[in-house]
């Protein structure tokens, strides 16, 4: 009987390590090829790692909770002699994972490079020797300078869709792939590297360093270290921190707030809720708010836009993907309802329910968190009157919705008990002026308050 190490594969997307969340097998278990053996959480998503081959689990090399760099041996399998080992020693992640194709690519190119006399290389297999990002594959078109920028930014150039002539991956493609935040902060130093061309020695080192150290990392000096506990900032928490810091750095925020009379909306939703139960779907306020938002941003397209800092252009989006903030045990996640304008309240409700569950279980795929054009954060389900949320960059606005409350509203000479709900619109002031935001909020609340208007524009 021979043994075989099963390693944490390169999951792609810049992921360098993962947290071993849960073993799905134990010592002595018989595993089949492609059977999931462990759940590993990266800073992007939780993935199931399958075994590349069949065998009997001999030893688990890592414990649940361990932080594991890619290419680390996870477990040792006892395999029958002669069992054909796959070409790549690393296991492949589940096919359902959106990053699977990229991962397959990252394993392949280094090996295939040796065939060509041109770029022939002798590459060690396994042993923790893989480099991220992997080298450009033979079919990938990008200039040497672009390949270098990609590497310095930890972008896998093989995973990019080139927008240049004949599918060339351009410098812009690389810069954009990391989000405009990195561009804005890192750009001067990249430009330095580029203009110097063969910038050598210390100057190149300095510029590379500057690029890497985008947000200044501040040390915290303890005064009472004994009364404190230090925990590594990892995974989703770190990702949230980076994203928030970058957005606050790049986007000048401002928030406008108002109160809406939601008496009609409450009635409408209550009826829909009862109707939805027959479908096994829980109908909340969120899908109605989404519909009101879609109608309002059709009127105010700059709310459904992005800024391309590189090109100096405003990108107006002709599609309506609504992100919604979901609180999970691991931190904030923003799943996306794609093409919300084309879906019914029932469809949206169902999708929200599914995505929220996936978010809580850490099972959201990257694809399900990508591509929002505007986001709604529903703080009302917890409490609070108003908040000033941070925009989900590269979007240019985020809508806050708060709890439904009874308030005395002065109307026709008397106070009438009325159900009200607060709303906020937080906007990117580079693109959206205060007056535009105020008019937008008015148009949005018109649909919230006047159900007739809302229903007129619904699918």
């Amino acid at each position: 009987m021979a043994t075989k190490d099963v390693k944490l594969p390169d999951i792609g997307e810049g992921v360098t390590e993962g947290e071993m969340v849960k073993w799905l097998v134990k010592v002595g278990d018989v595993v089949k090829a492609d059977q999931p053996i462990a759940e590993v959480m990266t800073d992007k998503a939780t993935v199931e790692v399958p075994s590349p081959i069949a065998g009997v689990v001999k030893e688990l090399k890592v414990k649940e909770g361990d932080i594991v760099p890619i290419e680390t041996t996870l477990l040792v399998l006892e395999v029958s002699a002669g069992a054909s080992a796959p070409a790549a020693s690393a296991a492949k992640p589940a096919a359902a994972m959106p990053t699977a194709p990229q991962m397959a690519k990252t394993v392949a190119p280094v090996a295939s490079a040796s065939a060509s006399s041109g770029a022939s290389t002798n590459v060690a297999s396994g042993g923790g020797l893989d480099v991220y990002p992997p080298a450009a594959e033979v079919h990938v078109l990008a200039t040497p300078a672009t390949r270098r920028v990609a590497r310095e930014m930890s972008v896998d150039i093989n995973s990019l869709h080139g927008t240049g002539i004949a599918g060339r991956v351009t410098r812009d493609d690389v810069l954009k792939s990391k989000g405009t935040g990195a561009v804005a902060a890192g750009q001067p130093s990249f430009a330095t590297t580029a203009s110097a061309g063969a910038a050598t020695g210390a100057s190149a080192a300095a510029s590379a360093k500057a690029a890497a150290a985008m947000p200044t990392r501040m040390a915290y000096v303890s005064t009472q270290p004994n009364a404190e506990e230090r925990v590594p900032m990892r995974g989703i928490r770190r990702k949230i921190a980076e994203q928030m810091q970058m957005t606050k750095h790049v986007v000048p925020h401002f928030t406008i707030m108002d109160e809406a009379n939601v008496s009609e909306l409450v009635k409408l939703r209550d009826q829909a809720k009862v109707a939805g139960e027959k479908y096994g779907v829980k109908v909340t306020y969120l899908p109605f708010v989404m519909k009101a938002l879609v109608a309002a941003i059709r009127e105010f397209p700059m709310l459904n836009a992005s800024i391309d800092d590189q090109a100096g252009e405003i990108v107006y989006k002709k599609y309506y993907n609504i992100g919604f903030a979901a609180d999970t045990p691991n931190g904030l996640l923003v799943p996306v309802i794609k093409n919300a304008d084309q879906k019914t309240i029932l469809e949206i409700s169902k999708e929200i329910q599914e995505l929220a569950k996936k978010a809580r279980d850490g099972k959201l795929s990257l694809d399900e968190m990508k591509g929002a054009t505007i986001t709604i954060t529903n703080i009302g389900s917890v409490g609070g009157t108003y908040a000033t949320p941070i925009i989900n960059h590269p979007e240019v606005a985020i809508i806050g919705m708060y709890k439904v409350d009874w308030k005395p509203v002065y109307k026709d000479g008397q106070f009438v008990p009325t159900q009200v709900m607060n709303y906020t619109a937080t906007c990117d002031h580079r693109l959206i002026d205060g007056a535009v935001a105020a008019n937008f909020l008015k148009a949005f609340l018109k649909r919230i308050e006047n159900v007739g208007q809302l229903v007129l524009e619904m699918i």
Partner: protein
Amino acid sequence: MATQNFDVCVIGAGPGGYVAAIRAAQLGKKTVIIEREYLGGVCLNVGCIPSKAMISAAHFLHRVQHDAPEMGIEIKSDVKVNMKKLVSWKQSVCDQMSGGVSQLLKGNQVTIIRGEAEFKTAQELVVKSKEGATSIVAKNFIIATGSRPIEIPGFKIDEKEVLSSTGALALDELPKTAVVIGGGYIGLEIGSYLSKLGTEVTVLEAGATLLNGVAERDCVQVVERKLKKGGVKIVFGAKAKSYKKTGSDYEVEYDLAGKLEKVKCAKLLLTVGRRPNSDQANLKGIGLQIDEKGFVKVNAQRRTSIAHIFAIGDVAGQPMLAHKASYEGVLVAEVIGGMNRAYDAKTVPAVVFTDPEIASAGMLESECRAKGYNDLKIGKFPFAANGRAVSLKETDGFVKIIADAKTNIVLGVHMVGPEVSNLISEAALAIEMGARVEDLALTIHPHPTLGEVVMEAAEATLGHAIHIIQKPLSRAEGSSVRATH
């Protein structure tokens, strides 16, 4: 034994090692380089550079003898070769280059230690020299120990009876006859200059072609024809078995299709390839992984199985070419300097200094097909149709361009002809930039130069070179697909 501490320790001062040491020093690392023989390595001392000196001289002689009279230059007395003087001039070339390396290393504050290095542990190595032993402790090591000639059963290189390229380059008397075992680029370069200087050369090649896998078949044919015309005898399928001394000469026995044949010669050269020096310096002893071909296993950053040890150049994998080693040297020094670098060049151009020269960048036609490019556009343009080549009286050869017919992206450029070693860099740049054939065709190339052949070959690939007759594009053979981008 004294111990010295460094940030970076480079083992081997060849074109990989010395370049790595200089870049490491430029990045502020305290750097030492250890060399047991020559600064500049095989390349500068007993390889690339001295062979080029000999080839230049031999070609010069050849031109004087064959081309000068036709150009109206009459030489009244005999043209003679003073081998001793030629070899000492060749040596002066090497000394000048090697001295330059020494100056560069010193100018960058790199410590040079002469001696044989051997790892004691993964953190420490001992350098032994005539003066004694020194211990070096370094944070990072770069193994750049190169390669040495392969031997075959029956032939042991001693540089007296059986010569490698090193011994051949040192000959200060021209042999009347020579047998070269191995028709690779080293054998052909040395064989052709010896032949031009006046030696009767026989090449014994075990395979069916010269320069197998290095160059396109049609490029090799041009060289083969010229070698034969110049009197070099090439025996294909000849497996050298043994040799014996007969007086001052040697008799080499070889198997040709099951029959034993013999050939006599005054000098015997063995040039069947090179093997990595991974069995030295106790690399295995410290646990470095070595692959089945003897190369130190490295990743795309040229990091070995021990994270703080790197390996570059011939010892770290194919192709065993000086310029690949230098590229890796810079790359590794920068990785050590904290930059994210990896080997992601698209092509390592290759040049062979035969007559005429062969050069290539990118993929061979067979490699293109193996990589899934099934629809290719291939165009050729001959030097015979180029004004500069004709005026140089160097008209053998052509430039061939292989492009993806769908996109016209240049995939491979293969050249045989005058100065193609100098023309290939344009092709390498085109491939690295992802250039299309039109980019080469539409770049104005100065007239009258050999470089125009590259432009015309690009035009030929598109089906409409000016200076050769091509069928109209619509009727050209192969794909009629025109890129739409």
